[in-house]
């Protein structure tokens, strides 16, 4: 209230009480009502119904078979090898993607944060894959990986490697091919977030450290990283949840193949729901995904907090 207090009348405190005038008691609820109604009908109720469906045999293409089966879907899930395999792969996918994206994103943010000629243009260009959809990423990288249209063919023309090499049909290379495509799209997310936080570090800190004789690496280690700590914890968590849940890229790029080698749990759910229409079993799978995700997130935050308190 520095500038405005001169303009406001003497009883400037009065409007403050206005905020809780009795006739406004219902205003916040009214304002939130549309959002609340939409979320209740299309988000909260569906979550409840997933729990309900998971106890049923429910397949829209075979309605005569539907009915309550108790925990049978969950029992079937525990016996399902593909469930355990997809779970392992999901873990691998999330850890590899998030750590690589974090490292490259941090490096990119540090570079972009410097002042140099062409900074604005480069920033716009390196951030641009962030806006690209999973399906489009697949389209682009499929053209790159395909044996007839991809780099492999041009390398073979130049005498490197063999014609007809398809990275996406070999279990060993399909994983890394998918990782690279997702990395291309995911690094900007970290770069954007970390850059936002980097710009809030006061230059004075660095100058003081410089006076104290701290080298470049020391300044990064003792000033930059601790400052970024909160942003890194938050962005890795959000990205991990996102990478866990996101199925667009793998659905279209590998479809979970070759031979289910790149099947994540949510992708398995999507395949059950979209292709097989097995809603009951799909609901049991998705419940497990939700619980696993929630437990992992809370554990991660708890570890991050414990780490901070011991420092």
């Amino acid at each position, binding site marked *: 209230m520095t500038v405005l207090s001169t303009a406001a009348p003497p009883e400037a405190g009065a409007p403050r009480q206005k905020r809780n005038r009795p006739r406004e008691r219902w205003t916040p609820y009214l304002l939130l009502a549309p959002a609340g109604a939409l979320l209740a009908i299309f988000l909260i109720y*569906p979550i409840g119904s997933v729990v309900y469906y998971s106890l049923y045999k429910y397949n829209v293409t075979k309605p005569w078979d539907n009915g309550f089966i108790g925990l049978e879907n969950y029992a079937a899930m525990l016996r399902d090898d593909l469930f355990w395999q997809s779970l392992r792969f999901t873990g691998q996918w999330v850890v590899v993607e998030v750590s690589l994206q974090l490292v490259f994103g941090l490096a990119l943010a540090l570079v972009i944060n410097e002042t140099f000629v062409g900074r604005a243009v480069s920033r716009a260009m390196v951030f641009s894959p962030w806006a690209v959809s999973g399906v489009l990423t*697949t*389209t682009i990288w499929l053209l790159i990986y395909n044996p007839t249209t991809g780099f492999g063919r041009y390398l073979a023309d130049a005498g490197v490697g063999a014609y007809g090499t398809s990275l996406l049909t070999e279990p060993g290379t399909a994983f890394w091919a998918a990782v690279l495509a997702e990395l291309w799209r995911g690094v900007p997310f970290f770069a954007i977030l970390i850059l936002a*936080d980097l710009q809030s570090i006061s230059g004075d800190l660095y*100058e003081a450290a410089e006076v104290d004789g701290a080298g470049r690496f020391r300044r990064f280690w003792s000033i930059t990283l601790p400052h970024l700590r*909160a942003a890194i914890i938050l962005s890795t968590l959000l990205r991990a*949840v996102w990478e866990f849940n996101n199925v*667009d890229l793998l659905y279209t790029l590998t479809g979970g193949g070759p031979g289910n080698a790149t099947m994540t749990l949510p*992708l398995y759910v999507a395949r059950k729901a979209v292709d097989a229409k097995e809603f009951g079993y799909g609901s049991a799978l998705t419940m497990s995904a*939700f619980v696993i995700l929630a437990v992992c997130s809370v554990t991660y935050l708890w570890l991050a907090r414990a780490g901070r308190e011991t420092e």
Partner: protein
Amino acid sequence: MTPVARTAERNSDQMTSATVVTGPEHDTTETGAAGPRRPGRRPTGSAAARRVPRWAIYLPLAAYLLFTLVPFYWILLFAFRETGSTALVPWPLTFEHFATVWNGAGFGVFFKNSVIIAVLTVLLTTVIALAGGYALARFRFRGKNACMVLMLCTQFVPGAMMLIPLFDIFRTTHLINTLWSIVVADAVFHLPLSIILMAGFIRNIPIELEEASWVDGCGRFSGFRMTVLPLLRPGVVAISSFAFISSWNNFLFALMFLNSQDQFTIPVGLSYMLGEYSVDFGALAAGGVVAVVPVVLVFAYVQRFLVQGLSAGGVKG
């Protein structure tokens, strides 16, 4: 409050207060401050003292730019190159692939559907988020914390989890295979984050401005419209652009809820082209270019706000 909510909130607060003072727009101010202190040197920010050698910037930047831009170039190459050509430059230029994909593969219709869905989603999300964000930013009321926690928790709900129950809801309400099903699903999925972000933006605008307008006889709404809304433009632009981009890119809901070709969106159309046995790569690439143009235009416009926008109250993937 759960630890999730507390951490997220603390972070957003820190970030908000920080970015208000130092957006990317303030590079120049920084430069001005550093300039006089070191006369005669090129004023390159407070970084003058900790100047990084140029090669340490340009070398990794060039490598990364290559990694970012070559894939874009590759799709443009196939979209504009004649069928059968193996040249590495799209010359002579051809637009036949665009004609094929727009008329033959139905991308003209898909594009129209995608635009309708995206525009409706943006309007719905932005208006509801304005109301909800204002309530969270400006009122104290019972259940406010529960509300925030609930909205943060929704960020953990897998999209794939909603496929089955939403399919059922839309079937019973006869919204299945209509564009409205996608609008509603997209908007609902995007709303919690938009509200949290919007509340952050509104909190940054001093309440005293509104209070002054009340003294002048304005009500809640007219006061908001005249004092807050004009200052909220960057926030509204950022939030509606996020909604646009995520709606334009949404694939899973559209794949599940739309089943006749005249209702398909661009990502669904692309995914069916990808699944064909004999893919026409030129047409596929042209379809990809059609899909990317609108988001690139929006992105080019908002990327200046992006760094501030994302840090103002939450994060979007």
